[in-house]
């Protein structure tokens, strides 16, 4: 990669290294969770991909820096695929500390589509996130969750015992 010769600020560098570590950690957690949920053993994944079990073990131990293709192949072997969302730098740590969902930054048409389908209200907030304004949208809960709750209640369970699905709050930059 060509270097510009401009020294990176050490603070930025550390923040980016932390973000990379979180991404690596998240990918590792997803792989372990996927293997557990799908019931796939490392041997089954190795057989499906035509690689040694030791190679699969290395990936599951978090050694090395797996490529996007490798990640997709491993998930594919477990019948899954990954989706990617963007969040402001440092948001994952903050959200984890506050035990809440990270706020998304929608930058593409497909990101925006996801949040506009059930859009009801739109607020423009003056959030200090660079030069971009951050918009927050509050949506109704997904219809399938509402329908699922209705079915449970129709089956005889008391409505007070079945929690209502939460509203979806999404932020994006414009």
């Amino acid at each position, binding site marked *: 990669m060509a270097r510009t010769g401009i020294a990176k600020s*050490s*603070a930025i*560098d*550390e923040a980016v*290294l*932390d973000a*990379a*570590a*979180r991404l*690596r*950690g998240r990918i*590792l*957690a997803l792989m*372990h*969770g996927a293997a557990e949920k799908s019931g796939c053993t490392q041997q089954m994944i190795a057989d499906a991909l035509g690689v040694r079990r030791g190679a699969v073990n290395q990936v599951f*131990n*978090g*050694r090395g820096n797996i490529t996007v293709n490798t990640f997709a192949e491993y998930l594919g072997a477990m019948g899954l695929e990954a989706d990617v969302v963007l969040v402001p730098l440092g948001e994952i*740590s903050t959200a*984890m*500390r*506050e*035990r809440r969902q990270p706020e998304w930054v929608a930058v593409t048409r497909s990101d925006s589509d996801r949040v506009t389908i059930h859009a009801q209200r739109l607020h423009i907030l003056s959030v200090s996130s660079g030069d971009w304004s951050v918009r927050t949208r509050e949506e109704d809960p997904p219809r399938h969750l509402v329908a699922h709750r209705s079915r449970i209640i129709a089956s005889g369970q008391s409505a007070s015992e079945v929690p209502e699905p939460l509203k979806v709050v999404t932020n994006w930059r414009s």
Partner: protein
Amino acid sequence: MTEQDPLAHCTECPRVTFASGAVLSVESTIDPNGMSQVIDQLEALRKSSNRRKRERHSDLKFRFEQLAAYGELEVPREMRKLGPELLEIKTADDRVPFYFLVASNRHVRAARLTHQFEKSTGRTAAGKTPRKHLNLANWIMKGDRDHG
């Protein structure tokens, strides 16, 4: 320009908090000599000119944040029991023994890190934690309890 100190120091003792979350805080220990080895070891990684070492520090930092937020790690095998009280955080390259502190007069619900060592230089052929590191962790844990 002086670098900002990113460590959260306890106001009443020499310990520092590496991460704090909804479940607990991840803190340093004080050994019987009054020193805190893990602070120096983690700071050496953080400030290293070697990028790989700084990446290892970031990997550990993320595990500390998870532990503080949830009381456990998202990948259960990254945490291992070493003894009746002693546990260990495992990343690809590093090991950090620690113990859970239920309560003291200053700190409530904490994971106290004893020290950090690199896996490649600190493992036996069987993959077990070397005796010298277990002994060191137990020695630091005892000293830390004495400090309250």
